[in-house]
């Protein structure tokens, strides 16, 4: 089914290409050169590392590979990672839409400041991103005593890992939507409102269809990054085997135990998950385009 989708996709793209007039296309050699540069760059920076991960993963045979990803500790890590993602991504998606709406549909003082604050988590070193939550919720932190008294665990438990992940992936959806909504301006929404639609309806029927690809991109990226976050989570996790180890931390543990094949097996599984989300996104995109 995927393949037929793919073929239809190619076919429809070819049709598009034919209908395009020559003035809208670069000369053939430019197209080929650009494509070659892009592919070569991706080959050196992405494909080769990926190939090396898979080749190490299967170095000791399929048996070791399967054993590595079905090991109870690995399963616990996968489950924890998915739980974290399931909480963090929706939170940041809602935030992203809200922030993009506020920042692109209105003008107000301090807009650039707010925009920069939204960007900030990208720029904060993962080491610091983890540390700040320790400083807040750790035993010596601002809320440390209160949490200890009430026996609430935030850091070195699920809530801390979620918080760190939310922090690190906070800007993704917003950042994807803002440039998009900026280029679209506000005229369509204004028209809708002046025709009597309420705010929510306007958002749902006018804005959302315009931004859905950006939103989907944002979700996919946020999801990918949430799965892969290492540095910040490493600081707040406590590294308890089978309990607070996420997939990236589990990989580190295996690697440090010289189980290179097993470590890379789990890593390859993560890259497969990422690629699958992308393919799913593309299928959804194609289906709705052709519908």
């Amino acid at each position, binding site marked *: 089914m995927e393949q037929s989708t793919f073929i239809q*996709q190619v076919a429809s793209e*070819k049709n598009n*290409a034919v209908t*395009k007039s020559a*003035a*809208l296309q670069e000369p053939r050699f430019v197209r080929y050169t*650009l*494509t070659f540069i892009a592919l070569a*760059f991706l080959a050196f*920076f*992405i494909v*080769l*590392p990926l190939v*090396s*991960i898979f080749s190490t993963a299967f170095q000791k045979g399929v048996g070791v590979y399967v054993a590595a990803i079905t090991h109870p500790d690995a399963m616990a890590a996968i489950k924890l990672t998915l739980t974290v993602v399931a909480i963090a991504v929706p939170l940041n998606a809602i935030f992203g839409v809200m922030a993009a*709406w*506020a920042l692109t*549909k*209105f003008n*107000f003082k301090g807009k*650039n*400041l*707010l925009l*920069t*604050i939204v960007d*900030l988590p*990208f*720029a*904060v*070193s993962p*080491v*610091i991103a983890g*540390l*700040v939550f320790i*400083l807040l919720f750790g035993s010596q*932190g601002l809320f440390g005593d209160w949490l200890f008294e009430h026996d609430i665990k935030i850091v070195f438990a699920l809530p801390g890992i979620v*918080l760190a992940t939310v922090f690190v992936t906070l800007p993704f959806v917003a950042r994807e939507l803002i*440039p998009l909504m*900026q*280029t*679209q301006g*506000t005229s369509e929404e*204004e028209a809708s409102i002046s025709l009597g639609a309420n*705010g929510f309806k*306007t958002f749902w029927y006018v804005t959302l269809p315009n931004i859905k*690809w*950006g939103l989907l*991109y944002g979700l996919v*990226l946020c999801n990918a*990054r949430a*799965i*892969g*976050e*290492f*540095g910040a989570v490493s600081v707040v996790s406590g590294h308890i085997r089978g309990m607070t180890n996420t997939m990236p931390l589990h990989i580190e543990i295996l690697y440090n135990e010289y189980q290179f094949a097993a470590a890379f097996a789990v*890593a390859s599984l*993560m*890259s497969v998950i*990422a690629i699958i989300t992308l*393919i799913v996104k593309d299928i959804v995109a194609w289906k709705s385009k052709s519908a």
Partner: protein
Amino acid sequence: MSSLTVNKKTRRIIPGFHLSLGYTMLYVSLLVLLPLSMIFIHTMSLSWAEFIDIVTAPRAVASYKVSFSTALAAGLLNVIFGTIIAWVLVRYSFPFKRIIDGLVDLPFALPTAVAGIALTSLYAPNGWIGQFFNFKIAFTPLGIIIALTFIGLPFVVRTVQPVLQNISAEVEEASASLGATRLQTFRKVIFPELAPAILTGFSLAFARALGEYGSVVFIAGNMPMKTEITPLIIMTKLEQYDYAGATAIAVVMLVTSFILLFSINLIQWLANRRFVH
């Protein structure tokens, strides 16, 4: 496009200002500002002289230079190649395009440590790629640039791609029918539309590269004064239970990143205003 004066009126026309802004402010206050304020609070346990001493120590200064120059190089590489990749992915068709499109996100999904290990094994002197070069790549600043380019690539591609997809063919057709060559259309019509996204992609990739730790420690070699990055300095201070010293360096990084992102956002806003008028 609406002009600035119309925008001011829209505040009244389009609803949801207070809700969306309020929610945004609350969310960033709780999840960004409050946590980050802890860095400043901890730094304040130092006197001004101590603070200056820590952040201007020779090893710290050397690490700023390493981090800054490698992040800049990686950011620029990503701007050039990221834009080309986004262009090719949106405009051209070639075999396995879907899968290749998917691969671009890999640097986000792969734990940075795994990326670091994989890149080190490729670019080490005995690696698949490293063996073909008669100079060292891994364990030099070059290795750091490679790791940072890897982690930053999706930022540029994924900010440029949706904007490129949204540029309607009509604008280009109009430009072409008015007699513009393809290059002119690109320079005068497409590029101005893309420029903000490219700039955003660059600033995000650059800022992310400044703070990156997980992948770099494997490939950098970590030689003090030569390939020691600033986040590593923070780690060394933490290992000595020196929270104040660690947060002092973190403050420097945070303020630098903030100024950088803020100025780029400001430039964009000003540029936007100019285009609009």
